């Protein structure tokens, strides 16, 4: 186990370095941020001063070395726009994103398991068909458009829910949370549902497929032959066996949820890291883009590692060839 963790950590470090080079080169090929940061009226001397102050006069490799040296001591550069350290900027926005993602994932899981079980147990009934058609609809709805329709319906026409922002927050352990206040909850529910919809469909379909395959297994037939009631067979035997793949997918998809939060956050003006990324891309705030990607890569690698370890702990048949793959 320890050797496995060490091996994965080394791999992770390699991925991080590769990623930092690729992202650094890529991001630094996008236009000149000076054009956006210095007012158009500024004269040549002033532009030059700003360029030197941001270190943009150095050759690219020198900029990368400076960046790498800083990165190793936890300094990912300063945001051009806000003037504060990029890492700090991202870390202050991260709790909002995590809160949104966790609530969305909880919503998806708690709705999809009963729906999927139902559809799997009665695949040919009208309710089973309805659930499957509904899941295709949920799959097909583009996230950003659902967000717009939700705002249109619940904010503009009905006026029930606020269209954006995070609402009132409560500080718990130094971090602000929205779900603890009524106002915060009202702000949270639409973006969370928006983000959950895609995963909800995915998990419903997964649960259904797993249930259908489980029902054909010998242990189910045996349990039935023993005279156990169907509710017990499903609630204990089937559920236990389908939970392993579901836990795995939930874990792996969590990274995807954080990435897709980019879309949801931008539409609902949720002040998280995703909105920050889009704003930074539009303003060419390079240090923030690079820092965001490095933070996200770290988060993904940790999630994948934890899921793989959990998976081999849950299922002894899996050793060292863990699952991978996630197409948000």
């Amino acid at each position, binding site marked *: 186990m320890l050797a496995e963790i060490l091996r994965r950590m080394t791999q992770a470090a390699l*991925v991080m370095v*590769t990623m930092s080079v690729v*992202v650094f080169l*890529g*991001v630094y*090929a*996008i236009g000149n941020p000076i054009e956006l940061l210095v007012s158009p009226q500024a004269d040549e001397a002033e532009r030059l001063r700003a360029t030197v102050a941001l270190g943009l006069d150095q050759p690219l490799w020198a900029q990368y070395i400076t960046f790498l040296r800083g990165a190793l001591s936890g300094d990912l550069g300063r945001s051009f726009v806000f003037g504060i350290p990029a890492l700090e900027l991202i870390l202050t926005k991260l709790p909002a994103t995590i809160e949104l993602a966790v609530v969305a994932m909880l919503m998806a899981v708690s709705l999809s398991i009963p729906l999927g079980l139902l559809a799997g147990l009665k695949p040919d009934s009208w309710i089973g*068909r309805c659930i499957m*058609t509904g899941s*295709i*609809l949920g*799959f*097909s*709805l*583009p*996230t*950003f*458009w659902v967000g*717009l*329709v939700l*705002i*249109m319906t619940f904010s*503009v*026409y009905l006026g029930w829910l606020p*269209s954006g922002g995070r609402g009132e927050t409560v500080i718990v352990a130094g971090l602000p949370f929205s779900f603890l206040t009524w106002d915060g909850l009202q702000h949270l529910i639409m973006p969370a549902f928006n983000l959950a919809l895609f995963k909800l469909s995915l998990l419903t379909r997964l649960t259904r497929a797993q249930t*259908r*395959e489980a029902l054909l297994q010998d242990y189910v037939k045996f349990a039935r032959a023993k005279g156990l009631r169907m509710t017990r067979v499903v609630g204990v035997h089937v559920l236990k066996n389908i939970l392993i793949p579901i836990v795995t997918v939930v874990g792996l998809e969590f*990274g*995807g949820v954080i*990435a*897709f939060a*980019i*879309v949801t956050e*931008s*539409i609902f003006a949720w002040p998280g890291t995703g909105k920050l*990324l*889009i704003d930074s*891309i*539009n303003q060419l705030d390079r240090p923030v*883009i690079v820092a965001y*990607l490095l933070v*996200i*890569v770290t988060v*993904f690698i940790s999630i*994948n590692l934890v899921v793989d370890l959990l998976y081999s702990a849950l299922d002894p048949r899996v050793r060292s060839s863990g699952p*991978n*793959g*996630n*197409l*948000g």
Partner: protein
Amino acid sequence: MGIWADMSSSTAPWRVLIAEYAESRGALVGAALLLLTLMLAVLAPWIAPQNPYDLSQLDILNAKLSPGQVGVDGLVFLLGTDEQGRDLLSGILYGLRTSLWVGTLSTVLAVLWGLLMGLTAAYFGGWVDTAIMRVVDFQLSFPAILLALILLAIFGQGADKVVIALVAIQWALYARTVRASALVERQKDYIQAAQVLNLPPARILFKHLLPNCLPPLLVVATVQVAHAISLEATLSFFGLGLPITQPSLGLLISNGFNHLMSGRYWISFYPGLALLLTIMAINLVADRLRDILNPRLRK
């Protein structure tokens, strides 16, 4: 299943497939919808009331008309107009064209590249396999939307760049699918027979291995066309995809976002509906194809 009983041995396989496909009503609706969408997209220049890209046909006096209103020159705007006085119905028809074209082209290119990579990895094995699959794993561990955003932030706007970005994020999935089925096929007798006959590797790869790896790939590809269209729309919505001169559905929706709060729902709503129906049609068809081609679900 009933249809297997009355099938005589002489029935062509594709007829069996069609008969089985038609058993699901949802799948038939999907196929019809998809056909309709394709026809609308192809025929757009002839059936659209207006050429939405031709600025001389647009009149700013027609801006932001609600659905059904009549413009200054007597044209009825069935789905209303946007802020530049562009007929939304025409915009949607042309946008559908762009979206379908970008989605299909990128998927086809990604399938070809993924096929080549996957077959190469499976056939040669060893370090070639390791190298290719490392890149595949690396790519698949990141959500497509994130990679696409970054790639387009680097490349800039343009239909060609969107296609490149979509190919770059999609090929890995095909490479893995093809490699998996090719590894199974490679063990079978017909490949070993071909190797014993000393046929050149390229011939074995493309004539023998390739056709047998296609069915699972086709199912994945159908789903991915829908995925690609949705991604392109999302990117265009963020202003990172197609340029304003070539509006896709995503860009039309994005234009309407600014007018949503003032109750002008139609600028975003109808293009979104067209996008939804297109993606839904493709998914319905793909879903049925997967059920038919997956022998494990056959009773």
